[in-house]
């Protein structure tokens, strides 16, 4: 069964010189439409990720990896084609999105619920999330009073403990200090690689080789190759040197 099934998807960004983002501006410039430059970030492609699979995406900077993951996660709308996502997704750089107006407790409940957990399930892992983030004393404090480190820990803790059905990990192993990275890798290996569908974006070929069964290699917005990880890495390295 497939977790993500994408057919003929593509994405073009129109970068305008001046932004026509008000009604007034649009009316006054009705005969003078904004000049825009089209950037084809993702060219037409098919993509399938099976349930429980760990798939890698590699390519140089600007090759469209991030845009592709945003589309596959359902965050960006595709311009063409059809996309079917079975389950909740989480695009994870550092953690989940949170509201600064809410307390840590409220953020935990809302974010975990968005990731697909039921209230009872959240009750069960609530303490775990709080202790992982080391925020036991600040559960009912609004996070706008938190330091940036505290916010980051909470956000990461919710993401790792709740976890969506399909996780998109964008360079997660390159963020934070050593201790943080170790923690991330530990959770990643113990709870995600087994049981969850994972899409891994990384410049580290060791990471990709270690975890991914299949890997996609992208170049200039085009899916050059999708299949055997070793072959994808080989193509990528050949292009780099």
């Amino acid at each position, binding site marked *: 069964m497939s977790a993500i099934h994408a057919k003929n998807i593509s994405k073009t960004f129109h970068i305008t010189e001046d932004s026509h*983002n*008000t009604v007034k501006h649009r009316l006054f410039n009705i005969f003078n439409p904004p000049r825009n430059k089209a950037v084809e970030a993702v060219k037409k492609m098919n993509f399938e990720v099976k349930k429980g699979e760990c798939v890698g995406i590699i390519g140089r900077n600007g090759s469209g990896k991030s845009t592709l993951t945003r589309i596959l996660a359902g*965050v960006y709308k595709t311009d063409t084609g059809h996309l079917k996502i079975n389950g909740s997704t989480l695009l994870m750089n550092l953690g989940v*999105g949170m509201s600064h107006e809410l307390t840590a407790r409220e953020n935990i409940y*809302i974010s975990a*619920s968005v990731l697909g957990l039921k209230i009872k399930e959240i009750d069960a892992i609530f303490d775990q999330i709080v202790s992982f983030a080391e925020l036991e004393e600040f559960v009912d404090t609004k996070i706008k009073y938190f330091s940036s480190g505290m916010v980051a820990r909470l956000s990461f803790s919710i993401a790792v403990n709740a976890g969506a059905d399909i996780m998109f990990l964008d360079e997660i192993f390159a963020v934070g200090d050593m201790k943080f990275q170790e923690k991330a890798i530990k959770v990643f290996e113990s709870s995600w690689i087994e049981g969850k569908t994972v899409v891994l974006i990384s410049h580290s070929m060791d990471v990709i080789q270690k975890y991914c069964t299949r890997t996609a290699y992208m170049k200039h917005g085009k899916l050059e190759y999708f299949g055997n990880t070793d072959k994808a890495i080989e193509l990528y390295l050949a292009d780099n040197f």
Partner: protein
Amino acid sequence: MIKLMNDWFRQSNKLERIWLMAKIEFKLRYYENKLGLLWALIKPLSEILIYYVAFEVIMKQGIPNFVSFLFIALICWNFFVESTSGTIQILKTKKYLYEYTNMNKMEIYLSTILSNCIGLVFNSVIFLVYYTFISGTEIPITSKALLMIPIFLNLILLSLALSLILSSIYVVAKDIAQIWTVVIGVGFWLSPILFKLDTFMQALPSLAYLNPISGIIINIRKVALYNEWPDWTMFGFNYIYAILLLLAGALLLNKLGAKASEYL
């Protein structure tokens, strides 16, 4: 079909989530103040006081039971304004919910309108208590007042529809917020909130149909204050209005609102 729906609800946590978000939204709006829920009531009460002085004491319109007459209309109007003007920037303020996930944006709208409904129910209860025990009216409340429920439902659908439309337009045109403030300002005086129904219908007969809020206010007064049946033509017309706008809203959300994570 029912079994299928049942399974879907049990398996997914959608309803639970919408209710959770509505509760938190409601708490954010009212409980943060010392006066709490009373704020929801203070607004219509202060408005009633102002309009009572202007239209009954000074201009002597001569509408019987003017306070109840205003109260029920203002409950509807304030709900409409809060659910439309108050949600134009919703895709921006709630961006944290969908910028990293594939959460269905419709849930954000449903939870917000649900949280407004809590206020609506609270105000309606206060109205009914006032009308029955304090207003001194001779017209008793009968089972016809139950028709307030479908009329409120109409109001909720209409508000949701406009909320969808306006907030989707906001993605590409930010000044829609200012434009809507003007529309709401004009709309207030072009709705039969303050005027006698006869005077309103004589002066602006077509507006009762053109302005979707008019019909709702006219009908809710009929069932809640005058123990009459609603004007069924208007009732049907208003429902069709709301449903068509709702379809347009869903379409716009899908077209423009879906691009919120790129543009906002």
